[in-house]
């Protein structure tokens, strides 16, 4: 079969750090080629180079055997490369139709010929079974539909090679099946697909060939028929999978927080809560499983006081919460590892020390006269202790936190949130984007907090994390609770179905 893309010796350096080192990749016409690798293995960097968002520090890209220089996404589009990013690149203020035609220059005249273009799009959407409602605003369609818009967008621009960056991460199982049907149809018509994933089951189901990346380097390219999921996992991680099994707690203590029939924007499928009742006891980890964007963010913000419920009630340690404010919840000894550490967790331009002590500066340990005189020395000493204890790797505690790696940033947050022995810890995607070592550290820390009597509400889209950590599991779908399951020997099939809304 004809080779459509060859990337040779691609290297990308950021300062001293190699995100990609000497990577080779070859994609044939009409195949689904999977790029498999852990977070941080260099998949996204490689694809950003292919799409012209980054310039490689070394190496060469060939399309149809000819060397090409891709200096911008516009060039990539012109060369027939389409990319569906993990975070959709859609303009929310516009309609589906406008998003699809956006930036496409293959037109006569300067005015938008709506009828002709609509016809073209409808033809494409019928040919590849990509149903979309052209006149709906992006904000009003579901995630799966938004993905179809992205694919249509790429096809409309004449993409021959389609990059799908973790396309299944935000989809339910049903939607994944639909996506796979579309992908088969596309390769059947002679398109090529680069599929990025780290979910073994999906990879084995859809790929023709698989290239494994590890720590920025190519490990190997294999045919699907000649390998097994276990072998791939081994190649991806570089060693045998040895999951640590934490002892599960079956009898939690008294409730720390309980929600009764709580509503928040309950009409919204993706950003609301509808009649949620749950409770977190002392000394247990309650895992909230579910596909991203089914109300998890709202649940987390509600039990940390950032937003207030529109219906129902919340009890904190047995007494009803009257006013919702982050500060009120902090005073109730609630800690929060927020979903976006840079935006919600850290003050990037402040030092590690200042971030560790963010909530504590008024404490008599760190200031005199009720906060009117900071004890700089005590602050520094304490921060250095925390740096040791939580193994935060930084040049000094005076280093700005935005310059730390994701894992170390998360450790700063752990030091701040766990050191005062909270009664409730709300952890949202606590290991997202972290490497294995940091993930293990975060998990261990959470377990020891639990064992010290802290109630933990773990919200994660990473199913494996939920299974590994949770003493109880609750599944959330479109803002509703679908069911509750034990954490030891959980019924995985039932939970998966519940996550898909059944």
């Amino acid at each position, binding site marked *: 079969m004809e080779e459509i893309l060859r990337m040779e010796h691609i290297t990308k350096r950021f*300062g001293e750090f190699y995100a990609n080192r000497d990577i080779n990749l070859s994609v044939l016409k009409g195949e689904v080629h999977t790029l498999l690798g852990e977070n941080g293995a260099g998949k996204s960097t490689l694809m950003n180079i292919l799409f012209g968002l980054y310039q490689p520090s070394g190496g060469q890209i060939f399309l149809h055997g000819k060397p090409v220089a891709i200096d911008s996404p516009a060039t990539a589009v012109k060369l027939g490369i389409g990319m569906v990013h993990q975070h959709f690149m859609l303009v929310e203020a516009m309609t589906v139709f406008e998003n699809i035609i956006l930036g496409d220059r293959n037109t006569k005249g300067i005015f938008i010929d709506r009828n002709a273009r609509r016809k073209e799009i409808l033809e494409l959407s019928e040919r590849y079974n990509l149903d979309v409602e052209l006149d709906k605003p992006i904000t009003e369609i579901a995630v799966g539909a938004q993905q179809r818009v992205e694919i249509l967008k790429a096809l409309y621009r004449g993409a021959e090679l389609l990059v799908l960056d973790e396309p299944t991460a935000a989809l339910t199982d049903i939607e994944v099946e639909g996506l796979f049907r579309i992908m088969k149809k596309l390769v059947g018509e002679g398109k090529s697909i680069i599929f990025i994933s780290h979910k073994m089951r999906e990879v084995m189901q859809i790929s023709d060939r698989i290239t494994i990346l590890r720590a920025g380097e190519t490990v190997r390219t294999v045919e699907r028929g000649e390998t097994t999921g276990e072998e791939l996992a081994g190649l991806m991680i570089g060693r045998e999978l040895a999951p640590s099994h934490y002892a599960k707690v079956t009898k939690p203590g008294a409730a720390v927080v309980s929600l009764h029939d709580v509503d928040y924007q309950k009409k919204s499928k993706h950003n609301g809560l509808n009649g949620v009742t749950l409770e977190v006891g002392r000394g247990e980890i309650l895992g909230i499983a579910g596909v991203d964007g089914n109300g998890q963010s709202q649940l987390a913000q509600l039990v*940390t006081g950032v937003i207030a419920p529109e219906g129902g009630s919340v009890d904190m340690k047995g007494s009803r919460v009257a006013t919702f404010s982050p500060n009120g919840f902090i005073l109730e000894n609630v800690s929060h590892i927020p979903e976006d550490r840079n935006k919600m967790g850290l003050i990037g331009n*402040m030092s590690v020390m200042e971030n560790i002590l963010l909530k504590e500066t008024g404490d008599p340990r760190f200031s005199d006269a009720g906060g009117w005189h900071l004890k700089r020395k005590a602050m520094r000493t304490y921060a250095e202790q925390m740096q040791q204890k939580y193994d935060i790797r930084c040049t000094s505690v005076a280093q700005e936190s935005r310059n730390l790696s994701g894992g170390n940033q998360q450790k700063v947050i752990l030091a701040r949130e766990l050191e005062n022995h909270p009664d409730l810890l709300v952890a949202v995607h606590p290991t997202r984007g972290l490497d294995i070592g940091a993930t293990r550290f975060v998990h261990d820390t959470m377990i020891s907090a639990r064992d010290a009597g802290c109630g933990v509400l773990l919200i994660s889209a990473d199913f494996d994390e939920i299974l590994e950590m949770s003493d109880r599991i609750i599944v959330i779908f479109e803002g509703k609770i679908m069911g509750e399951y034990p954490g030891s020997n959980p019924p995985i099939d039932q939970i998966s179905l519940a996550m898909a809304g059944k």
Partner: protein
Amino acid sequence: MNKNRFFSILVPFISVLLAFLVGCIIMAALGANPATALGALWKGAFGNTRNVGTTLSRATPLIFTSLCACFAYRCGVFNLGGEGQFLIGSVVCCYIATQSGIVGLPAIILCILCGGIAGGFWAAIPGLLKIYRGQNEMIISIMLNYVATLFMGVIYTNWLREGSVPQTMSVPDESKLSRLFGLRCTSAFVIAVVIGILVYYFLFYTSMGFQLRAVGLNMTASQFNGFAVKRYILFSFIISGVIAGVGGSAELLGTQFRLINGFGAGYGFDGVAMALIAQLHPLAAILVAIFFAALRVGSTTMQAATGVPTSVSEIIQALVIVFTVAGLAMVKLPEFKAALERIFSAGKEA
């Protein structure tokens, strides 16, 4: 020393040097000897104690307005209304000083207090509009500058006018601020420096100041960590307005004694520029304000001695601002940073 801090000090200095270099070229082009002209400039600003006094006196209102800007920007909001707050403060101060019949120290204290409150009130308007209506605080505060300027016009042409010239009556002699060592500069300068030190202490040595800076750097994270973001924003507006209002009062009682057309004109934006050059550091802002005042005071002597027009000094001031802003932007570029670090480490090894 921390490299970031090193560059943030280096950049303004290099900007000043570059600005003077351009200034020298212009002077040469005008047929003057740059060395003589700069000498005259220096002499005019710092040549003798009398001139130093004049320079400090000119610097005083600029210190107030730049502290005003610093304080608000530290909380992440752009208060461009320093001038309006300065003027409203001076208007209220003028009214009390001339109409209340109180004189002497009680009058001074009352005037400055009320001037500060008036400034704080004026600054609360953009703060409230930002918080509750989501409006752009910059545009609102600028509009309020014009309103304040025109309102002051009503005062000196109409309500408190004295005689045929459009100006207010003078502050009674007993209520004027005392001069320091018989120089032009008054205790207003002392008030300005004390406020500067207080602002510095507040921002860097108190829990509230710490939280206020956190809000300025990342509002979302501050909210998640339990800080009352809106309250801090309003608070920072009001305090920054109070500082400007006190400045307006001090300027009236210390230097001008009456409101007149052009009173305080341009001080607001000067303050913003100086706060930016000082990179929002209150103590640095005091030095920057003195530097700019020196350029202004010295340029008169320079014009008299060498014929170089005072506007050359204005160009130098403008260039310092532009170079600093562009320079600070540049050192943040990754490529530029890498190059600097190479030079840096090479220098260390040598």
